[in-house]
């Protein structure tokens, strides 16, 4: 069976339409460019009192659904792509790490099923929205430690923020299924982050250079997974930073502050990128 599977060849049927992060961010409408500033609401945070709350929640739910598929694919690949060994070299991982990845794949598969049912409940169809493939791309590193940093700590950390936002949305709207399902999935995501943190520390215990490289990679991915400011402490972002659950998942206060800074920087970058795209269009 093939190893190191490229993102372009992920198996999807005709219902799905995929885009990458560059395409998503090149949309000049996405940023708060000068021409539109006065027309936007004061806060973009996803709450039921937004006029477009139902549609925004359905769109985010679909994003969760495709994210779970890619997380399943990523965890599965990490089980398969590397030989069993000590993990001290970049082409092996300990058997116990593979077991954790297998458990995670099992969790993600369950999350996919839950997400399909929630999407149906909210009135969405599979493939109704474009699938951004950035999540799987982060799971394609040749070093398993970078995958742990990128997927388990950055991606699953984002999942904590997203599920917390959706859980609060369900709670405020009085939607019993949404609140309940998001709470249970959130518990799994906290575990996935913790597994990533534990393995990263254990494998790089005597290799500070590799650890440094992994944490730098995580920082880059955190910025990417801020989706150009979609997740940050700013109320301009639909998704907030779930500080309490991140703490439970093993993030230190310093790490959470760093993610907060990176997320705000991503928001500013997106505004600048959108302005540049607009100028390029005009040019």
């Amino acid at each position, binding site marked *: 069976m093939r190893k190191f599977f490229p993102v372009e060849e992920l198996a999807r049927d005709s219902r799905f339409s995929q885009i990458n992060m560059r395409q998503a961010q090149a949309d000049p409408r996405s940023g708060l460019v000068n021409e539109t500033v006065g027309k936007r609401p004061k806060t973009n945070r996803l709450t039921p009192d937004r006029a477009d709350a139902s549609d925004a929640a359905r769109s985010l739910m679909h994003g969760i659904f495709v994210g779970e598929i890619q997380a399943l694919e990523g965890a599965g690949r990490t089980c398969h792509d590397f030989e069993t060994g000590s993990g001290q070299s970049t082409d092996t991982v300990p058997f116990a790490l593979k077991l954790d990845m297998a458990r995670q794949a099992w969790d993600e598969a369950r999350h996919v099923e839950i997400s399909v049912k929630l999407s149906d409940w909210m009135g969405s169809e599979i493939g109704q929205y474009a699938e951004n493939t950035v999540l799987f791309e982060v799971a394609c590193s040749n070093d398993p430690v970078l995958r742990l940093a990128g997927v388990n700590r950055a991606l699953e950390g984002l999942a904590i923020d997203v599920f917390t936002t959706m859980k609060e949305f369900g709670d405020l709207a009085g*939607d019993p299924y949404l609140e309940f399902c998001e709470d249970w999935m959130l518990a799994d995501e906290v575990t996935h982050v913790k597994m990533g943190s534990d393995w990263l520390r254990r494998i790089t215990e005597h290799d500070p250079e590799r650890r440094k490289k992994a944490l730098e990679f995580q920082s880059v991915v955190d910025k990417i997974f801020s989706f150009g400011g979609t997740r940050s402490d700013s109320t301009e972002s639909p998704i907030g930073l779930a500080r309490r659950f991140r703490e439970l998942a093993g993030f230190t206060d310093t790490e959470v502050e760093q993610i907060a800074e990176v997320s705000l920087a991503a928001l500013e970058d997106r505004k600048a990128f959108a302005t540049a795209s607009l100028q390029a269009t005009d040019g």
Partner: protein
Amino acid sequence: MSTTVAPQTFRFVKFDAALTARVADGLVVALGIDRPVCIEIDETTPLARLRADIGDTITIYAESGALEDSKRPREQSETATAINLGRILLRTRDRLLGGFGGAPPDDQLALRQMAAWETYTVGRLARLGLTINQQRWRYNFRNRHGFTDAADAAFDELWSAGGLTWGELEAISSAV
């Protein structure tokens, strides 16, 4: 009577003004709209809000997200164009035909009132043959009226209704 669309060319999105006009023309005939329609598309925002000014001409202000293909960002969806122009045109027709004199202006409608009117509107569009996902609108109604059997019964009543006045519509919504 043909619909006019502005702008005719787009720089932020890949929309087709002629397609928009053709879809709107079909809706104007199907809904029995009695005056010219002008559609102004705001392509600078991906949001999906719609509003109408009613005069000798009906002017529809549509943000680009209302006409967009959610699978293919920045491209136009004929289905979304038909459903969303249909929603605003049918609400406009309700106001023109009478019985809705007591309805507040769109920007003063409570979220709950808007959800009830949307349900009544989209139910009628579905019976006209437009492709509508009823569950989407049921979810929207539940978000505004509660996740209860009583809310579902009110939704079903509004969805299948025709010829309601604003007072009747609001009474169904308020009873939940």
